[in-house]
C-alpha cells in the first residue's frame, strides 16, 4: 500500500481491519513489525519553505536528505540534530521526515534547543479510523486547541499515519568549537553538568570513549569567548577542536557510532544527569553518555536487567533487541494510571487497533 495522498490513505484505513505498519525509510523503526506496510514515500516534497520565517513544510515521505539539502542552500538546518540510526540498527534505506517525527528523534543539541517535538509546529495525519486531521499550524506560537501534534511526535506509528509536517528550522551558526577533555567517568560527567549550569550556552555535553565533550556554537567571536570561559571555569586540560573536526565528533555521539555493528542489546536510558554514574557503576555494559548524562546509551548482553537497575530513577527504551529478548517490551511499562490514559488515547485514535498493535498504549 503506497498512498499518493490523504484521500487514498483515508479510504484504505477506513476499510482496513487487519494490522498494518507505517513505513517511512525503515531506518529508525523500533521493535517487531506486524501486518502490511503503509508506505509514505509517495506523499513527498517540500511544500513551503520560508527561510525568513524559519519554517519548512514537507510531506511525510520526503527524504531527510532532501530537506537537509534544501535547508543547507539557505544556510539553515533542523536544530534538533537528527540521528542517523542505520549503523546502530543495521538498516539501509533513506530516512524520511515522517519517520523522524514518528520516532521523535533528537540528538545532542536537545539540551539546548529541545527535541523534535519542540520543532514541529504542526502536522497532518490520518488516524487509524481513516480520519484526516490537522493539528497545530506553521507559526512559531500557537495555543489554539489541544496540541495533538505532541501526541503524534514519537508515537511510532501507533496513533495514525503522519502525512505532512511543519517544522521550525534554525540558521546554521558561523562557528562551532568543542572542548575535549580526557577524564575519568565521574570527573567527566561532573564537568558536563558544570558546563550546562554555566551561562555559556552549551549546545552539546557528552561523554564518550573516555573523553568529556562540550560544544558551543554561534558567532565566531562569541564562540571563542565562551570556549575560553568554559575552559577557565572547568579547569584542567581541554583540547579545542573546531569546524569539521568538531562536527564529525558530534556525529559519532549522535549516531552512537561506538555501538554500530557490535553484538548485544542497545538501551536508551533517560534519567537525571546526577544519577548517571550510579546507574552504570559495576554494570556489565558499555555506555555512551549524552545530554550531560541525562541520556545513556547502553550496549549490554540480552539478560542484563536494565529497567530493574533503574529502580524508578527514569526509564529505558529497548532500541535494539538481542536473541532471547522476545518478551521484553520496547518501551518501559508505565504506572497504571498513565498506562490507562495512553491506552485510552490509542483506542480513540486507532479504534480498530490496526496500527502497529502493541507498540504504544
Amino acid at each position, binding site marked *: 500500500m503506497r498512498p499518493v495522498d490523504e484521500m487514498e490513505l483515508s479510504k484504505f484505513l477506513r476499510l482496513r481491519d487487519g494490522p498494518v505498519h507505517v513505513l517511512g525509510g525503515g531506518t529508525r523503526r523500533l521493535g517487531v513489525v506486524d501486518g502490511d506496510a503503509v508506505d509514505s514515500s509517495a506523499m513527498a516534497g517540500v511544500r513551503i519553505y520560508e527561510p525568513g520565517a524559519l519554517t519548512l513544510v514537507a510531506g511525510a515521505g520526503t527524504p531527510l536528505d532532501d530537506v537537509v539539502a534544501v535547508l543547507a542552500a539557505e544556510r539553515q538546518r533542523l536544530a534538533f540534530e537528527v540521528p542517523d540510526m542505520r549503523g546502530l540498527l543495521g538498516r539501509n534505506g533513506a530516512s524520511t521526515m515522517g519517520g523522524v517525527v514518528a520516532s521523535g528523534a533528537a540528538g545532542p543539541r536537545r539540551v539546548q534547543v529541545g527535541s523534535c517535538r519542540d520543532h514541529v509546529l504542526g502536522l497532518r495525519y490520518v488516524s487509524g479510523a481513516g480520519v484526516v486531521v490537522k493539528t497545530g499550524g506553521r507559526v512559531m506560537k500557537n495555543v489554539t486547541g489541544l496540541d495533538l501534534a505532541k501526541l503524534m511526535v514519537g508515537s511510532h506509528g501507533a496513533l495514525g499515519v503522519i502525512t505532512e509536517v511543519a517544522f521550525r528550522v534554525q540558521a546554521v551558526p558561523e562557528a562551532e568549537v568543542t572542548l575535549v577533555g580526557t577524564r575519568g567517568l565521574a570527573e567527566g560527567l561532573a564537568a558536563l553538568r558544570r558546563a550546562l*549550569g554555566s551561562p555559556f*550556552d552549551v549546545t552539546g555535553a557528552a561523554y564518550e570513549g573516555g573523553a568529556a565533550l562540550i560544544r558551543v556554537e554561534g558567532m565566531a567571536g562569541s564562540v571563542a569567548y565562551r570556549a575560553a570561559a568554559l575552559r577557565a571555569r572547568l579547569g584542567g586540560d581541554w583540547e579545542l577542536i573546531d569546524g569539521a573536526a568538531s562536527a564529525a565528533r558530534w556525529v559519532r555521539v549522535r549516531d552512537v557510532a561506538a555501538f554500530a555493528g557490535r553484538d548485544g542489546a542497545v538501551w536508551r536510558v533517560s534519567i*537525571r544527569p546526577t544519577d548517571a554514574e550510579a546507574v552504570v557503576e559495576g554494570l556489565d555494559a558499555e555506555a555512551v553518555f549524552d545530554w550531560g548524562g541525562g541520556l545513556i546509551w547502553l550496549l549490554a548482553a540480552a539478560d542484563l536487567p536494565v529497567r530493574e537497575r533503574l529502580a524508578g530513577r527514569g526509564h529505558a527504551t529497548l532500541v535494539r533487541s538481542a536473541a532471547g529478548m522476545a518478551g521484553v517490551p520496547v518501551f518501559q511499562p508505565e504506572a497504571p*494510571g498513565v498506562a490507562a490514559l495512553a491506552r485510552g488515547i490509542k483506542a480513540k485514535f486507532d479504534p480498530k487497533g490496526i496500527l502497529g498493535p502493541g507498540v504504544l498504549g
Partner: protein
Amino acid sequence: MDMPKPDAKVMAARDSIVAKLRATVPDGVIDDKAETRAYECDALTAYRCSPLAVVLPSTTGEVSAVLALCHAMGVAVVPRGSGTSLAGGALPTEDCVVLGISRMNGVLETDHENRFIRVQAGRTNLSVTGAIEADGFFYAPDPSSQLACAIGGNIAMNSGGAHCLKYGVTTNNLLGVTLVQMDGTVVEIGGPWLDPAGMDLLGVICGSEGQLGVVTEATLRILPKPEGARPVLIAYNSNEVAGACVADIIKAGLLPVAIEFMDRPCIEATEAFAHAGYPDCESLLIVEVEGSPAEIDEQLARIKEIAFRHDPVDYRESGSEEESRRIWLGRKSAFGAMGNIADYMCLDGAIPVSELPFVLRRIGEMSAEVGLAVANVFHAGDGNLHPLILYDANKPGDLELCETLGADILRLCVEVGGCLTGEHGVGVEKRDLMKVQFTDEDLEAQLKVKDVFDPNWLLNPAKVFPLAVTASRRMG
C-alpha cells in the same frame, strides 16, 4: 456570550454540595455571594458569572478529594490559577465549583545540577525565578502578568512571553506534572528527565486550558542566567520596512531574545502616557540580545548592519542600564497607555513572519472601514500579533462593532496561514471562532482526547470548543 443553561439538579443541591466540600476542605470553601464575586471573572472582565462555590485546597490529596466529590455529584469544576487569563479561561458557570490552587504555592525541590525546580502549581511565575535567581538561574517563560499569574495557569494556557523567541514557551520548559483527573485519580506525568517513556501525554496536557485535569505540581526546566542583556531601538517610516528588517535579522541566524514591534498609534499613545522619548515614526522595533559585553557588541554590530540596509529614521543602542530601561519603558507601558485613552480589546493572533507587512496593511484598512482605531504592539520575531482595538464601552453598539472587527482580524490571521491565538488561549473568548481554523474532524479528534481524561465533560465547561460541537457530550 452564550453559556450552557445551569444544571437545575446541581443548583437545587447547592447546600448539600457546599456541605460536602466543607467536610473535605474545612477552612477552604467560599459560598457567600459577596465573597464568591471575587471569582466571577478573570482578566477578561467583559464576562462575569458567580459560581456555586469556590474551594481552595492546600494539597494534591484535597484536590483529588474535591474532584472525586464533584465527579460523583455531577458538578462541573472550573480550575483557576491566579485568574489572569485574557481569554476567559477561568470564567465560572452558575452551576460550577471554582477550584482555586492559590494556596498551593510552595517550592518542593530545587536541583541546580540537574537544572530543574519542582513547585506547587499555585506558585506565581515570577516567584519561581525568585527562588533560584540568587544561584544564577531563571525560569524562562515570562508572560506579562508574571508577577501574578500561577504556574498552573501557565501550563493550562501554554503561556509565552517576550523572551520566548529564544527560550520557547511553557511546553518547551515543562518536564513533568502531577495531574489530578476529574474522577480524583492522581497521575505523575513526565519527570526530571528530558524524554517521555512512551506517549507524550505531557505535551497534550500543556495548553489544554483545564480541559483534561488539574495540575497541582510541576517540574520545570531552569536555565543559567545570561551574563547580560542589551536592547536596541530601531525606527522606520513604514511597517513593511520594519517587517522586512525583522525577517532579515531572523534569516541572518541572529537569535535575539526579543524582537518587539509597535506601530504609530501605539507609539503616540505610549508617548503621551509614559514619555519614553520614542522617535516620531511609523513603526518601531525593540531588539534585545544577551551574552557577555563583547558578545552583545558582536551581535549588535550585525543587527546594526542589517537595520541600516533598510534605512532607519532612528537607531539607538542602549549604553547603560538607564537607557535600557527607557527603551523598554514605552513597550512595557503600552497596554496601560492604551487603557488610558480608550477601552480596548487585545487580540492574540499569530501569523507567519513573512506576512507581517500584508497583515498590518490589511488591519489598517479594516480599521478604517469600521471606524475603530487599532494599535499594534507585539512579538514580531515569532509573528504573534497583539492588535488592540480601541472602542468606547459607553457608546451603544461599539463593543459589538469591536468584537466583529476582532473576529475579522483573527480570520485574516488564519487565512494567511496563522492561528487564532498565539499565547493567550481560546477560553470563552475565541471558542466560537474555532471552526475558522479547524474542520469538524480536527475538532472531533481534540474532543476525543478530552473524552479519555474527562469522560463526563465536567472540567472547565463551555471553553475552547464551540458549544454546538460539544452539546451532545455535555448533555451526557
